[in-house]
């Protein structure tokens, strides 16, 4: 996601249509979430018990929740939280994942085996289980959630990058460049990076989707972040008892979660492997 976003707008038109839609969708959601607080005074925590479960109106375009809090403010806060956490987790997973993947694929031998074993340790457990247990150690703390997600995510980068690097390291194109007298820096720049970059950006988009989903799932089972934080999964749990009286309110976090993940998936531009 990050890689592609940073390339906007010069490469915008070269992106396939689905990726453009994905990027557009995400940009629209991000714009609403980040720009709105600059225009109006929104407080996701301010309660108004006289005005609960209000239908959308001019004053409250998205209505209010069961405690009379502004849904618009809460949705904006939730998007900032989810995307922010996803971005940070993806970034901090990509860096070690890519570096270690290149190292393992390039060096082979015991470096490869040792790093492979570490990756296998992480993969032995389903990712969410790992995040769940880590998050439980420090309930309600951002860092535990972030650590868990990043810990699960780096493995994907590692495995893909390692496989690509390994097959490239044995390829004629690298052999030819080595014979011509080029060093490792050149091989990385001209051969490896162009082969890795598309896979990395795809993985980043899927990773962001997974991070957003994991945060919501944990919030949903009340293990992750604690109320009154505005978080998508948490909001669904909180609003579930009111879905008969005010269905439009619980549909809001559902729709936003759906659009965020859809945006990431479209942006990834490929089906998951």
């Amino acid at each position, binding site marked *: 996601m990050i890689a592609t976003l940073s390339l906007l707008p010069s490469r915008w038109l070269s992106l396939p249509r689905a990726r453009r839609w994905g990027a557009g969708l995400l940009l629209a959601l991000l714009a609403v979430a980040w720009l709105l607080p600059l225009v109006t005074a929104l407080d996701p925590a301010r309660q108004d018990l006289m005005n609960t479960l209000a239908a959308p109106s001019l004053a409250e375009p998205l209505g209010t929740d069961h405690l009379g809090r502004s849904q618009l403010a809460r949705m904006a806060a939730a998007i900032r939280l989810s995307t922010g956490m996803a971005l940070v987790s993806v970034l901090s997973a990509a860096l070690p994942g890519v570096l270690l993947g290149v190292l393992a694929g390039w060096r082979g031998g015991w470096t490869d085996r040792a790093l492979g074993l570490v990756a296998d340790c992480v993969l032995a457990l389903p990712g*969410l289980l790992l995040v769940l247990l880590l998050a439980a150690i420090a309930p309600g703390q951002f860092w535990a959630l972030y650590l868990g997600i990043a810990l699960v995510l780096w493995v994907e980068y590692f495995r893909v990058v390692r496989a690509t690097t390994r097959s490239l390291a044995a390829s004629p194109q690298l052999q030819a460049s080595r014979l011509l007298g080029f060093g490792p820096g050149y091989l990385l720049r001209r051969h490896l990076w162009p082969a890795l970059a598309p896979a990395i950006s795809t993985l980043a988009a899927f990773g962001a989707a997974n991070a957003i989903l994991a945060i919501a799932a944990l919030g949903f089972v009340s*293990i992750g972040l604690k109320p009154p934080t505005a978080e998508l999964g948490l909001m669904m749990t909180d609003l579930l008892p009111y879905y008969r009286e005010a269905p439009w309110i619980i549909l809001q976090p559902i729709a936003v979660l759906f659009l965020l993940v*859809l945006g990431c998936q479209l942006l990834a531009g490929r089906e998951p492997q």
Partner: protein
Amino acid sequence: MSRLTSLLLGRLLQAGLVAWGVGTLTFLLTRALPGDMAYRIAAGRYGYENVDRDAAEAVSRELALGGSPLGDYLHWLGDLARLDLGHSLVSGEAVWSEVRHQLGHSLDLAIVAVLLALLIGPPLGMLAGLRRDGWLDRANLLGAVLLRSLPSFVIGLLLIMAFSVGLGWFPAAGHGGASHAWLPALALALGLAAVSTRVARNAMAGVAGSPFHAFALTKGLSPSRVFWRHGLRNAGVPVVAYLGVQLVYLIEGVVVVESLFAWPGIGHALVHALVARDVPMVQGTALAMGLLFVALNTLVDLTCLLIDPRRRQA
């Protein structure tokens, strides 16, 4: 070493890693609990009015609290290695017996979900793959992308709203007759099917465009015979292999979907134990889920070995 042995050894190693990982994380969990742990746990177990020093010390002994961190850790792992999981801090029951019941319920749910998913996903995908870029293929892609953007608990929520509240066809939560299983199983199955249908579609499209498919046709076999004798099996191999990857989704889904539907399975129990900080139960349920994951993976591996003779060659 035969393929089978090396496969089983690999999975055994994974099971060991699961046990070690779960043990370590739950140990960290005990260290992170605030306050006088033994006292709090004893209070949770016997009720506040019945707690005294002896009870707290009994708990302390049981969980081996209070030594050096390393000693505690080794002691903790030692208990795990002896499969001594202790008793639930909430109910006082042996963790094993609780987990056994819960695992049964979860397996019921998982099996129904996987069967449903296999019934929905791969057949649609294969049909789409045979007619690439036809209307079914497009609809299949759209459906898969939309469904994949919804986690299983959201699918579950929407199903509850539509079927139990809107139409009143199924009970929304709990565990009783077969009718209780439909919605949670469907919630899991739809997500699984969304991925497997695309895997099946791509596999089938690959097979349909392959030289051996073309050759089977020009040999004179009828299209339906080519599908049953060559297409299905070749397209089936990646679908089954990918089930292994999807197991992650299944296990993760079990945790959240069971909680949503109050299904008395292992995932529900894990969440409960985490909220109640019932450490022995956390360890027991997480371990059971991890090992279930390994066992299902082994099953997928064995199926792959069965249907793909190439994998049997060393």
